[in-house]
């Protein structure tokens, strides 16, 4: 008895002791493991924070742009052009166009720099003698704006007008302090006179920091970086989004309807299903190769056109749309379908009158998310030539155009680094804002129409 007692207690005791002895270590391991998990989570969230903070801090100032507010005198002695031609009764449209273009050419040859210099000399007299420095204060694209003002309204000649001229990129960077002011004069992009004028005019309130609306209304510009805007890229992206919306979404939904409801379950449809899953994971650049080889090389569609971009992005978005649509069709309870069939509806009627309407909100969310993805895609667009420089807003999907993500790619490679780094971040902010809007819409729709069965 006693023997067995001691034996059992001696055999039991070590186990309890062993457990108790390891308990501290195990608890520490537990705490450590948990801390690692929390650390990983915090790190992941921190990455989101760092990413957004760095983009916002760089990009937000770029929405405010130095502007020189001058009273411009449209001097008739400098703008020495005849009357604007009017179409005569016996003139064919082609002849009138030729005459009008001749007039416009004369207008373009006017020395607009001299007008800007004279206007600047009104506020800083020294500008009258330093033409080069004076012209360098204002973005070079503003000459074209002045020309367009006269072209649209020839009666301006001889008048004085208050015009807010966008300052040159270097002036903007100088005033924002993004240039190291202590650098030796030889390596400064702004001449000493211009630096002095910039600071002086800024103090006097002639140069102000205005909200740069033109970022949304101007197109990209090579000769005048300060006035470069996003309008062309915006319209191009919008057109491609429309194409994806009207091609990928209906086709994807119909394909999902067929595969989920009508397709016989055999080898062939199994192949289709595997194929769609694989297609969803194919690298996006491969779709660019497809576009370059089939749409451009074989079918001869124009390079850089939103139409081709939209087609490529549609093919890319299609599998995602199909997968999302199938998932939301599958989520519809079979009782709805069976009830419809039970009262005599054909399978097609049950589908289109009963199942599909219930599944639409889910499909919509999936569609919006895949459109948002397509909107942010860059790589395939590079291969179909959408990284070309385009200085006009496309008016049809066959015109040359850029797209928002491609514009970001183009700007980040601009040689005017310290100006375009901010401008690129600004473009990224616009793109991210669009993405957030689309995703928020998707989340709203999900919450608004979500039904649990």
């Amino acid at each position, binding site marked *: 008895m006693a023997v067995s007692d001691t034996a059992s207690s001696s055999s039991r005791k070590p186990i309890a002791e062993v457990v108790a002895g390891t308990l501290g270590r195990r608890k520490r391991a537990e705490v450590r493991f948990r801390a690692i998990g929390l650390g990983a989570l915090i790190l992941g969230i921190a990455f989101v924070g760092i990413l957004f903070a760095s983009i916002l801090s760089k990009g937000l100032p770029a929405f405010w742009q130095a502007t020189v507010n001058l009273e411009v005198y449209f001097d008739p002695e400098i703008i020495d052009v005849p009357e604007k031609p009017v179409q005569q009764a016996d003139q064919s449209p082609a002849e009138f166009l030729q005459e009008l273009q001749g007039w416009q050419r004369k207008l373009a040859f006017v020395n607009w720099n001299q007008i800007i210099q004279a206007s600047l000399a009104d506020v800083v007299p020294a500008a009258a003698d330093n033409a080069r420095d004076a012209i360098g204060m204002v973005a070079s694209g503003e000459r074209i704006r002045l020309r367009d003002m006269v072209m649209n309204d020839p009666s301006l000649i001889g008048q004085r007008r208050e015009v807010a001229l966008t300052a040159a990129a270097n002036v903007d960077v100088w005033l924002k302090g993004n240039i190291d002011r202590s650098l030796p004069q030889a390596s400064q992009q702004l001449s000493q006179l211009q630096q002095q004028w910039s600071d002086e005019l800024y103090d006097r309130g002639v140069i102000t920091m205005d909200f740069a609306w033109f970022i949304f209304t101007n197109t990209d510009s090579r000769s005048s970086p300060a006035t470069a805007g996003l309008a062309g890229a915006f319209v191009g992206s919008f057109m491609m989004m429309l194409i994806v919306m009207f091609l990928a979404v209906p086709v994807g939904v119909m394909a999902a309807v067929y595969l989920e409801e009508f397709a016989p379950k055999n080898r062939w449809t199994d192949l289709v299903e595997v194929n769609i899953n694989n297609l969803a994971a194919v690298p996006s650049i491969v779709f660019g190769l497809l576009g370059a080889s089939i749409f451009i090389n074989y079918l001869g569609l124009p390079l850089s056109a939103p139409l081709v971009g939209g087609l490529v992005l549609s093919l890319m978005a299609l599998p995602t749309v199909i997968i999302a649509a199938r998932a939301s069709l599958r989520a519809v309870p079979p009782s709805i379908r069976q009830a419809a069939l039970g009262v005599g509806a054909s399978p097609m009627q049950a589908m289109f009158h009963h199942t599909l309407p219930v599944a639409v909100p889910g499909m919509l969310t999936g569609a919006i998310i895949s459109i948002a993805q397509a909107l942010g895609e860059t790589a395939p667009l*590079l291969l179909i030539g959408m990284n070309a420089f385009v200085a006009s807003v496309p008016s049809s999907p066959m015109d040359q155009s850029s797209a928002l993500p491609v514009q*970001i790619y183009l700007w980040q490679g601009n040689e005017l680094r310290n100006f375009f780094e901010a401008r690129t971040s600004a473009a990224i902010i616009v793109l991210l804002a669009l993405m957030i809007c689309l995703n928020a819409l998707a989340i709203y729709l999900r919450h608004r129409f979500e039904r649990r069965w």
Partner: protein
Amino acid sequence: MNTLIVIVVALVFLSFFYQLGLTRSKSIQSASGRRLHSRPGHYGMMVVLWCLIPAVVVYVAWMIVEPMIATSIVNSFIPPDVAADSGEVIRSTQRIESLVSGFGVAGEVQPYERAAAEQLSTFNTIARLALVVMVAAAGVAGALFARSRISPTMRARNEVEGFIKIVLIACSVIAILTTVGIVLSMLGEALRFFTYINPIDFFFGTTWNPRFSTTGSSNQGEFGLLPLLWGTIMITVIAMLVAVPIGLMSAVYLSEYAGPKLRFFAKPILEVLAGIPTIVYGFFALVAVGPFFSGIGEMIGFDIQATSAVTAGVVMGIMIIPFVSSLSDDIISQVPKAMHDGSLGLGATKSETIRKVILPAALPGIVGAFLLAVSRAIGETMIVVLAAGNSPVLTANPFDAVSTVTVTIVNQLTGDVDFASPQSLVAFALGLTLFVITLGLNVVALHIVRKYREQYE
């Protein structure tokens, strides 16, 4: 005529024919006193389809034939001395077309141009009229024929639904056609590339130096795949080293430790990373991460380039975190609760349960998820284009600049290169390689994930 007006007119006609079928079927029903096979709407739709399909067929056929006739008319007027020069022919054809449009041309109009323009504009008028008449005739004839077929026994619904089904099938075939298109287009161009370059030199070459040789020169440059593949692998490994621990551990923490509140906020925030366009990551790598790393390198006296495999890999890893975490989360939650509870009941701590029970049980699924993440990393383009430095050399140092398959595809196809030269055709050979690698990874990964999911059901 404006396209919009044409569409509106067509819609008005179609709705008229729909009404035609509808009223006809209703009147037949009331006249014969018998129940129709289908709903009246089906008869309406049937008439519309019988109108639409012949009209579209005629329209498409005419659109193919008409330009041929117009070209032959213009060509018959062009005098032989102009016809000798193909550039001159194109120019004079354009002038004739702008004369026809009524816009006029600048400069003297040649008599033959005027004659051709007159002839062409008569033809255009006739052609337009003929098109309208033929399309309308085809549509109306079809619709009338369909109307005459309406009877109580006529199965209009089956006909309409058969048509819809064909449309549905056509839509699902597009996905297959896309794959076929990808394979065929890349295969065709890649085979053309291999007529210039020996495949063995391509797949096993260790030098990447695609000289932009002048046409006709025998020196085509060297196209060795290995340096690009090596760069891709290096960046992918770095990306996985970042993404796997962070993604997996945050999935574990979220599913096992976190309260519902933290889960509610943290999960969507992590998923934001997946929605950010890759070009944004590329820019972030270029302006923030690259300088950060080279700054650290300067501090410890080690040369780290701002654009390097490490920069691209780390940023790509950040991009993949939500991908790894959401897939792992799915798989972890698939592990039956009984296993989890059993382990806790035996006295194991939570972390022991996770490490010794849940993770081993979920391992195959997690491996599948990792493979999917790897295939995504291999195909990623914009981050590496901006941040990897584009230097196609075999280097073992991750702090050096490298190049990848995707970067090279972009570089080879975005310059001003002749589409038929090996310098641009190589992009398709590279694309095919990339496609095959990612396809293999995806197939294996999807297979593992699928098979594993079925285990516990």
